């Protein structure tokens, strides 16, 4: 589904070259649940940004369903983010002055569709995620778990082919983390391809089909058949 070929993301800071991602080759198949693990600064978030089209590689290539992302214009990349991928962040990144419903609707602004259709789809996904009574609430009035579920709804509402989640449980307590991971696992079983970045090996091991480990920007280890496949 999506594959990287010796993809690099190097930053030049004065005389120094920082190799955030260095020659990473990785292939993720349809309906896979992949966890990218590694310590802080290992480059896993940068790799996720590259895969999600938020950042562009300095070398190598990324291919999504036969289309090389490197060849896309800025607008082409925006279209890729608008239609093909959904992204979740550790700190939810909800817009604080908008309600849960408006936050979810926002993801559909760049995807076509009328105001009425946006409202229907956003309402439907929030109800599915158990937030029917929280739609009119602003993020500040929601718990951490609820906020992350709103963020998940925002990522899912446009029916993406791929879901990227950067430390989705990083700001959550154990119960909420379990709930979110269970939801992701459920979505994966329904056919959604998921890539999560986490430093929590336990979560990665429990829910992901496959774990890839990064260390100083390089892929150091592939571990297939996590417990996720059996869960």
């Amino acid at each position, binding site marked *: 589904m999506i594959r990287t070929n010796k993809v690099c993301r190097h930053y030049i800071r004065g005389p120094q070259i920082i190799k955030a991602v260095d020659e990473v080759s990785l292939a993720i198949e349809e309906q896979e649940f992949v966890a990218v693990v590694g310590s802080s600064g290992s480059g896993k978030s940068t790799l996720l*940004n590259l895969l*999600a089209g*938020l*950042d562009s590689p300095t070398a190598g290539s990324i291919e999504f369903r036969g289309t090389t992302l490197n060849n896309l214009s*800025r*607008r082409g990349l*925006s*279209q890729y*983010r*608008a*239609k093909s991928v959904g*992204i979740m*962040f550790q*700190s939810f*990144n*909800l*817009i604080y*002055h908008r309600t849960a419903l408006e936050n979810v609707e*926002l*993801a559909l*602004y*760049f*995807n076509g569709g009328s*105001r009425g259709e946006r409202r229907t789809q956003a309402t439907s996904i929030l109800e599915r995620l158990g937030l029917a009574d929280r739609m009119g609430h602003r993020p500040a009035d929601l718990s951490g778990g609820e906020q992350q579920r709103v963020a998940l709804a*925002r990522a899912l509402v*446009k029916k993406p082919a791929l879901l990227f989640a950067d430390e989705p449980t990083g700001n959550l307590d154990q119960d909420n983390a379990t709930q979110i991971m269970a939801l992701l696992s459920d979505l994966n079983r329904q056919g959604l391809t998921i890539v999560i970045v986490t430093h929590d090996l336990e979560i990665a091991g429990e829910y992901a089909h496959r774990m890839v480990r990064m260390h100083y920007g390089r892929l150091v280890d592939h571990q297939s058949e996590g417990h996720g496949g059996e869960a």
Partner: protein
Amino acid sequence: MTFRDLVAISAGNLSRMKLRTFLTVSGVVIAIGTFVAMVSFGAGNQKYISEQYEELGLFSTLQVHRLSKTAAGDSTQARPLDQQALNELSKIPGVRLAYPFDAMTVTAALADSQLSAKAQALPLSAMQTRLFSQFRAGHSFSSDSAKEVVVTPQLLHLFGLTHPDSLIGDTMVISIRVATIDSGLAGLIPRDSGWIRQQVRAIQFDSLLQSAYRQRQAKRLTNEAISRFVNGFFEHRAIVKETLTVVGVLEERGAGRTRMEPIVLPVAIAAKFRSSGLSDDPSALFTAFSQGTVFSLDSAASSRSYPQITLDIDPNVPLKAISDSVRAMGFEPFSFAQMFEEMQKFFFYFNLALSVVGLIALVTASLGIVNTMVMSILERRREIGVLKSLGADDRHIRILFLVESGVIGAVGSVVGILVGWGVTRIASVIIKQFMMKSGVGPIELFALPLWLILTAVAVGIVVSVAAGYYPASRAAKVDPVEALRNE
């Protein structure tokens, strides 16, 4: 993302920062208010003049004058505006009426008071044109030979009268003192029978051979003859009187080309005065000399020349065609419509000059918009990052911020127009009170035409959007990775 979505998002963002938005919009309001108030003054004057032109029918009026010496050329004699010219001008296709400006000095007596004033003759048909058909009281005379008179408010003022209605139906005696050519001619011949003998004796016959002597004698005799003619002309004056009924008081008329003499007489009455002799005004004699009509005054009105002939023209006939015909006859046409076009050009520049003041204020306000938008971007970097992660491209972000500055401009413009109009209303009331105190009829000097409203809104929005362009471009360039990392 539709335009409606953009406006809704922008309005939502602006309403969150109430104080900042209020202050920024206030800048635009003051600028647009100033712009509207200033240009409204120019537009009001323009409207007033345009209405005056329309009311007086000046768009269908053409004045004809003699060619100036320069225009006629040194070798050509400028053609006089006489009866023949009047007949020719009236036959030009598109000319509905041609009438001369025929003025004379008369004495007007009303009850116990009398004064000297200028009078002009007008045919009844001319009185029916819009130029002369507006009356403050009464109406026009009933026929060209009616023993009636129409006056202007100026005459009322001269008589110290205030109510035009009080004059209607009153009797006014118009008289003119005339000097005849016969008495002038009689004066040429000295009454003293010994005068010829004295002259003959005074001639030094032997000196007649000298040319200088001959010239001196000829000048002396000519000067004495002129002196006797002029003295005879003015010493034997007669008074011609007509008792007329005042039937109308015309509306006040400004000075300049549309001015009227205080007394308007039917043509037959004026002709009667004319045929009695030459006015005792020395300038009338001088004019008669210069026009070579001294000896044709009594009999031939056709040889009299007018300073101006007015044409009432069909508005459907091209003005240029009529002007060209007048020029081809050897006269100088003056068109009020062309003058109006010139005035329109003047008002364009006048309005432009007035609008500069408002535009300077708007430029200052636009700096406020830039500041507000830059602040907004700094505060909303994360939001921009989120929008980009959701699929917004640079264009979406740029438009979002441009619409935001456009909304500031639109709201500021609409409120600014209301404020500006309010200011002009207050100014108008004050100015009208001053006018009334000065005896001038209240004139509306301000106007808010549709073009001014649309221009103000357009200028407000365009300047605001232009001010928002730099911040919007900055917002569009925000790197989503950097923005989302900045937590």
